[in-house]
């Protein structure tokens, strides 16, 4: 029999006992719905976790240091590397080269220095750092009161909450309650403060008018001068970030736009050492942070940076174990979800066996007028398949709705607890497709026995039966 004839006959037969077949189909759809709801929850949770991890910047960041910098993170790995003295300098051209590597989103230098800020005529000495503008979309500043920098070159600062408390004279005493960030931000945001800093100005040897003795080494031929400056900055926000967190650029109490900071040529703690090595006019960095497209590409990027002769550091294994955890979780959710489908498949077997009893005579007639065993088998398979496809489609819709409702309920609860809403549930297209396919496969498997039984039916017996 041709496929469309088969499908047509199958649908016709299913319509003949609408109630029973609808109930069976609903059974399948409940099974599929539970499977879809379970798996989409697993996928949603996994996405939520990975999204958080990715946004945290911990898992897609490679920290690059020069081998010349002997205060390194992981010294053991360096045993076989280049001799520090022969390794390249981590300067602006190297940073640009790293940024050109495949899978690298950006590479920004770690600029930090201790300097003094004056607020309402009182000086405060603290650590300042440059924050790349890409942090605007990063969850590092999720808890910010006020706003992020308006531009990469804006003369604006974001204060870390303990520094903000210090400015207001509200330093937390042990055992007392912490002042909420919002309360700290209110009197500060919009106000101005002044930063004092030392600009390092490289002076080429030719214009060395001070008459200092020329060095023996050609490398040390550059000299520099230092100029004091003041810069007025507007406070735009206060964050609740921990100044001791893993995130390099925010490990400071006062944060400025990175580009702005770069343009100021502030004398850095490493600057003194650099003067002894006295390289070129281009800035030299102690650390460059490299953001990678996704955590999976970390190893690749690390390898290529190592080839350039730098030291690298990343937290890689953590994402691996997170992924393994979610694979196991998905597996368990899938098994629980499949239980309902297994029950539904028994329903299919029952319905089709009933259909054989009911349609004994019809099968006999079809055989008498020339239907082969295979024709009859195919017809029952088609009926099981149609029920599976309908049940699958219905089930996906139902599962989607259940997921939506769970998501909505969770978010209502989260909001009532003053927490940000989360997408804890996600139905990807592949899940829609494979859930329907799975329902059809399960239905066809359930149809195996009834179909075989119908095919073996003796037409003489069947026709005698009234």
């Amino acid at each position, binding site marked *: 029999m041709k496929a469309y004839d088969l499908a047509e006959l199958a649908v016709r037969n299913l319509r003949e006992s609408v109630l029973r077949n609808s109930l069976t189909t609903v059974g399948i759809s409940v099974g599929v719905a539970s499977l879809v709801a379970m798996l989409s929850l697993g996928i949603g949770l996994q996405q939520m976790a990975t999204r958080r991890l990715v946004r945290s910047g911990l898992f897609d960041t490679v920290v690059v240091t020069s081998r010349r910098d002997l205060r390194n993170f992981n010294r053991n790995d360096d045993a076989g590397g280049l001799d520090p003295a022969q390794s390249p300098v981590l300067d602006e051209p190297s940073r640009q080269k790293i940024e050109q590597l495949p899978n690298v989103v950006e590479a920004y230098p770690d600029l930090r220095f201790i300097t003094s800020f004056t607020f309402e005529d009182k000086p405060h000495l603290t650590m300042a750092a440059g924050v790349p503008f890409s942090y605007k979309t990063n969850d590092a500043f999720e808890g910010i009161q006020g706003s992020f920098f308006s531009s990469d070159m804006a003369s604006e600062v974001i204060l870390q909450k303990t520094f903000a408390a210090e400015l207001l004279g509200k330093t937390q005493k042990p055992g007392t309650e912490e002042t909420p960030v919002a309360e700290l931000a209110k009197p500060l945001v919009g106000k101005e403060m002044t930063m004092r800093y030392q600009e390092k100005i490289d002076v080429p040897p030719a214009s060395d008018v001070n008459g200092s003795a020329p060095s023996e080494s050609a490398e040390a031929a550059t000299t520099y001068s230092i100029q004091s400056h003041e810069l007025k900055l507007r406070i735009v926000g206060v964050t609740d970030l921990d100044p001791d967190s893993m995130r390099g650029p925010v490990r400071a109490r006062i944060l400025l736009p990175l580009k702005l900071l770069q343009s100021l040529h502030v004398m850095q703690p490493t600057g003194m050492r650099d003067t002894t090595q006295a390289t070129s006019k281009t800035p030299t960095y102690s650390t460059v942070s490299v953001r990678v497209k996704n955590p999976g590409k970390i190893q690749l990027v690390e390898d290529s940076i190592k080839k350039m002769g730098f030291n690298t550091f990343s937290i890689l294994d953590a994402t691996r174990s997170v992924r393994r955890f979610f694979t196991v979780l998905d597996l368990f959710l899938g098994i629980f979800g499949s239980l309902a489908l297994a029950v539904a498949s028994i329903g299919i077997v029952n319905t089709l066996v009933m259909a054989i009893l009911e349609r004994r005579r019809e099968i006999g007639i079809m055989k008498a007028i020339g*239907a082969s*065993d295979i024709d009859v088998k195919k017809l029952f398979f088609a009926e099981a398949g149609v029920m599976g496809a309908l049940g699958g489609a219905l089930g996906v819709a139902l599962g989607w709705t259940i997921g939506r409702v769970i998501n909505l309920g969770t978010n209502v609860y989260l909001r009532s607890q003053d927490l940000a809403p989360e997408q804890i549930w996600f139905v990807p297209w592949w899940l829609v497709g494979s859930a329907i396919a799975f329902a059809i496969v399960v239905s066809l498997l359930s149809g195996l026995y009834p179909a075989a039984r119908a095919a073996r039916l003796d037409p003489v017996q069947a026709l005698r039966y*009234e």
Partner: protein
Amino acid sequence: MTTVSPLTSKVAIRTENVCRHYAMGESLIRAVDGISISIPSAEFVALLGTSGSGKSSLLNLIAGLDRPTSGAVLVEGNNLAALSREALARHRLRTVGMVFQSFNLIPSMTVIENVELPLRFAEVDRSQRDSLAREALERVGLSRRLDHRPSELSGGEQQRTALARALINRPKLLLADEPTGNLDSHTGTEIMNLIREFNESLGMTVVMVTHERALAEQYAQRLIFLADGKLVDDQPNVVAAGAPSQGGRA
């Protein structure tokens, strides 16, 4: 055993000592017990006997609905006992057309769908099926109510539908099991006339099972009597009132 007319010398059906035994509990039922007959092409044969004589069982063996316990059934040269289940289904589809006492139409299908059902099994294109079915229905005198279900038709109309279905694949054999058993005598006559017409104009070999001797004598060219699964008499129909002259049988 039979006198074969020289005009119809080609053998359509031949059984050789065919047996069909059933085990029913402890006892063995010999539904067909060693029957050997030969039916030439285009002959109209009536199988007569009382209920349980084995006439329907013999018909089922010829139809390929059942397999003999022993012996051979040769239809159009094929030994049905040796055919696979698939090949036997093909035999039922292509070589034989069947009509039954209880019509055996599929209740959920309309008249035209019932008639074209064998074409579906024969994988005939949808476009051709409709015209073939209408043609067959016209031949049995049914041109209205084609979209009705069998339950909405009279017995005569149902049997016409069944006849059209039996003809649709242009088989060589028409096997009829008590075709008028559920019809009044007037309608029965109409159906019998149609069967005779197929026998004459299309040259179909007809084997009809009946317990009504009068009916058999009126239409068949040859009468085969069975009792307890055995052949008891096989004779040309000498009465054959309506039968046309065929090789001096009358």
